[in-house]
């Protein structure tokens, strides 16, 4: 935010913006190493849920404490509502994967609204693309294993469609399932988090700059209300982005389960 604010032209702009949009997404290496801040955050997005889950389930108490209750609720949500609820019979064995992507994406997303971090790792294409490709390989593998070659022929020559339309629908279905699905899954998460990050950064940076006006020789008091307005809107969007962070993690996990379900139970 400070980086964005430093390049503001508060005389001519109403919403300030960085000279280069990369300033919002790419940061220098961490403390003179070859490791970037984003890579550190990626590792933290894995370690934080691991540590929380470890401390939540360490005691294995029959009467759960607060942390254990939260962990159990999340596990139950993914296991019962998504793994078993969506995939159905045989869905339980996908629980570890679905739980992992949910927790990893959730904490990666929550960095967007985490104070002093304010950067979701899922706004970098590497993470959504990697996870969607894993989902893609899983559902294709499950489809081939469950249906054999019939998985592909079923896509190319779908049953229940008038014969005249089968070639057209088959091509659409083939492209949709094998090419579009992984990218749509990745881009949905990526785009939502990029949009949220850009919006928050610009609003809060504008608010900060117009209120504080750093490096300005003479403070222009009439600009302060503009800053207050942007900052207030930014705080409202902050709450909205908190919901988006949780929702996008849920949607990614849910869609992964839906794709696996279509491969596992094509009759549905």
């Amino acid at each position, binding site marked *: 935010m400070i980086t964005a604010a430093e390049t503001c032209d508060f005389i001519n702009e109403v919403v300030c913006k960085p000279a280069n949009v990369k300033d919002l997404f790419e940061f220098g290496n961490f403390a003179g190493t070859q490791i970037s801040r984003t890579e550190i955050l990626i590792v933290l997005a894995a370690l934080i849920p691991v540590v929380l889950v470890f401390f939540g*389930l360490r005691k294995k108490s029959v009467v759960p404490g607060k942390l254990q209750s939260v962990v159990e609720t999340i596990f139950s949500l993914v296991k019962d509502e998504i793994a078993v609820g969506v995939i159905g019979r045989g869905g339980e064995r996908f629980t570890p994967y679905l739980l992992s992507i949910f927790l990893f994406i959730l904490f990666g997303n929550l960095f967007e609204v985490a104070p002093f971090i304010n950067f979701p790792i899922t706004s970098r*294409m590497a993470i959504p693309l990697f996870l969607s490709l894993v989902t893609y390989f899983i559902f294709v593998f499950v489809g081939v294993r469950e249906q054999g070659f019939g998985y592909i022929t079923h896509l190319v020559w779908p049953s229940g469609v008038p014969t005249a339309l089968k070639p057209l629908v088959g091509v659409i279905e083939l492209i949709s399932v094998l090419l579009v699905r992984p990218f749509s899954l990745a881009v949905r998460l990526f785009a939502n988090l990029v949009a949220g990050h850009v919006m928050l950064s610009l609003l809060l940076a504008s608010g900060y700059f117009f209120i504080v006006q750093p490096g300005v020789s003479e403070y222009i008091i009439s600009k302060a209300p503009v800053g207050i307005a942007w900052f207030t809107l930014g705080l409202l969007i902050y709450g909205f982005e908190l919901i988006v962070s949780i929702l996008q993690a849920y949607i990614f996990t849910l869609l992964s389960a839906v794709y696996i379900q279509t491969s596992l139970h094509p009759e549905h």
Partner: protein
Amino acid sequence: MILNLENLFAEAEESSSGLDLLLPATSELVAGVAAFSVVFFFIWKWALPALNVTLENRAAAIEGQIQEAENTKVEAEKSKAEYDKIIANADAEVQKIIDEGKAAAEKIKEELLAEAKSEASAIVEKAKADSEAEKERLASDLKGEVAELSLQISQKVASSMSKDDQQKLIDNFIKEMG
């Protein structure tokens, strides 16, 4: 604001190909694979088994508590039935105790009365016997006194009478005293 964002992206693309942002950075991809693998193996090998153990323990504890509650309920119902029975029989028990008490009291009363009568009778008998004995003793004493007085009188009378008169007097006296 939307226009501003559009301008922002347009300017950014012009200045430094914003397309870079759509391509995954290799280092981030490697970090992502490693980090996700850690989460996945942790969840797979430790967290889910731990959760399953916890849930099994909880289910066992709940089942045990339900069983215990059922046992307690059965015992409570049994106790309640016993208490109801006791309460239902309480009036009869009370009446029985009262009747037994009355009977015992009556028996004691009769025994005491019999004993008192017996004692009274014994006292009366003893008093009668004592009275009779006293009477006899008094009569004996009186006779002695009378005899002595008679003797004294007779001596006085005899000294002034003839021997025949004395004899007649003595005989009459003895006869009267009979």
